[in-house]
């Protein structure tokens, strides 16, 4: 069983208009930039629902798909570092479902753990809880949230092996491991691809059972949104 594909173009085979994708990353940190670029080169893939904590910037990350109007709906916790996003949202072209960040992470993790719904306190008493079931446990109010599963989850890891085992680096980990769990098909792009046995089995963040396709990306740009330095 070979999970290794040659590049992003091969990896995204089978992604079709109307599908739901999960894309890892927080801001521009740890985003699957190669697969996003490949999707933007396939403008016939449209009407995507993208579950991603953020929506990129105008000329990088998911912003590229927004420019092409490939996205129908975004499910995110924080958006709008991005003029085109704002324009499409205000004009009604783009549907946006804002979800508290922890709820978003837990919805992905739950979907990838076979848990269809769970109670969380986040958003109780706010518009997030409108229309949702509320229940009290130990004197505190919680909202019932349904989990997410994607048609394709696309994640970016630091190191991977050909069995699909992944290791992430620093805060580039973020949503990637939980989204990897929740894909009907999960694609991983990695900076370094090694043979099985080269990664320490104690130290793997995402088990290969959750990963269906893997490839090594070259020349990662890894754009920085806020370069803050101390003197």
């Amino acid at each position, binding site marked *: 069983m070979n999970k290794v594909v040659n590049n992003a173009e091969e990896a995204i085979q089978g992604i079709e208009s109307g599908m739901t994708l999960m894309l890892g990353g927080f801001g521009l940190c740890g985003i699957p930039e190669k697969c996003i670029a490949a999707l933007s080169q396939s403008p016939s893939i449209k009407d995507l629902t993208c579950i991603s*904590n953020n929506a990129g910037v105008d000329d990088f990350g998911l912003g590229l798909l927004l420019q092409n109007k490939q996205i129908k709906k975004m499910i995110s916790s924080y958006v709008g570092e991005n003029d085109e996003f704002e324009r499409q949202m205000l004009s009604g072209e783009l549907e946006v479902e804002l979800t508290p960040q922890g709820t978003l992470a837990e919805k992905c993790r739950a979907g990838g753990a076979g848990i269809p719904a769970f109670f969380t306190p986040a958003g109780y008493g706010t518009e997030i809880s409108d229309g949702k079931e509320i229940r009290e446990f130990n004197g505190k109010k919680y909202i019932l949230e349904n989990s997410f599963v994607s048609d394709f989850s696309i994640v970016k890891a630091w190191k991977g092996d050909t069995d699909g085992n992944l290791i992430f680096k620093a*805060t580039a980990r973020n949503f990637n491991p939980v989204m990897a769990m929740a894909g009907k098909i999960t694609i991983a792009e990695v900076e370094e691809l090694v043979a099985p046995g080269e990664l320490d089995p104690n130290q793997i963040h995402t088990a290969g059972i959750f990963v269906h396709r893997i490839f090594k990306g070259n020349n990662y740009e890894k754009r920085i949104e806020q370069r803050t330095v101390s003197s």
Partner: protein
Amino acid sequence: MLDKHGIAKRIAQELEDGYYVNLGIGIPTLVANYIPKGIDVTFQSENGLLGMGPFPKAEEVDADLINAGKQTITTMPGSVFFDSAYSFAMIRAGKVQLTVLGAMEVDQNGDIANWKIPGKMVKGMGGAMDLVASAENIIVAMMHTNKKGESKLLEKCTLPLTGVNCITKVVTNLAFLEIKNGAFVLKERAPGVSVEEIKTATQGKLIIEGDVPEMRI
């Protein structure tokens, strides 16, 4: 009257040894600059880091190492990286002992509004709803009034809420207040600020007990 740094300094006095702390964007971030001597606190960044350090030197900048404000940062010895689900697990489980965040409005019931203004572009709540729904000790850092001079300490929030019944303390440019039993309890005046000024700037129910001391910054 306090400036942003003064607000951060006063909040820093609320830190206790061993605390795990989450600081929001803006004034809250400044709190990290004023940790009292002899006190050891660990900063949590909800994008997946415990043990956040200061900004890096130019040559140390790492695109894979950012905080929840998407700023490049560093780590302290003993730091840990984790995924977003684990990060909010510790937040919801109440392991983060102090959360400091900004607000547009806070009311006397501890409700907070800080994510959405009707008619304006909404960027999203990020992790704020999870944080305020979970932390036991939440301090709001903000100006006492908005740009129009209207009070931000209200009887009832008018903007869409971020959380209900959750804020315990507020530090503004004018005062340090606790929220208890449906009222703002004035604990300290900012240097040079009179009780009268605070009364005028506070729309919500304000309780003044005895002599209100001036802050020591």
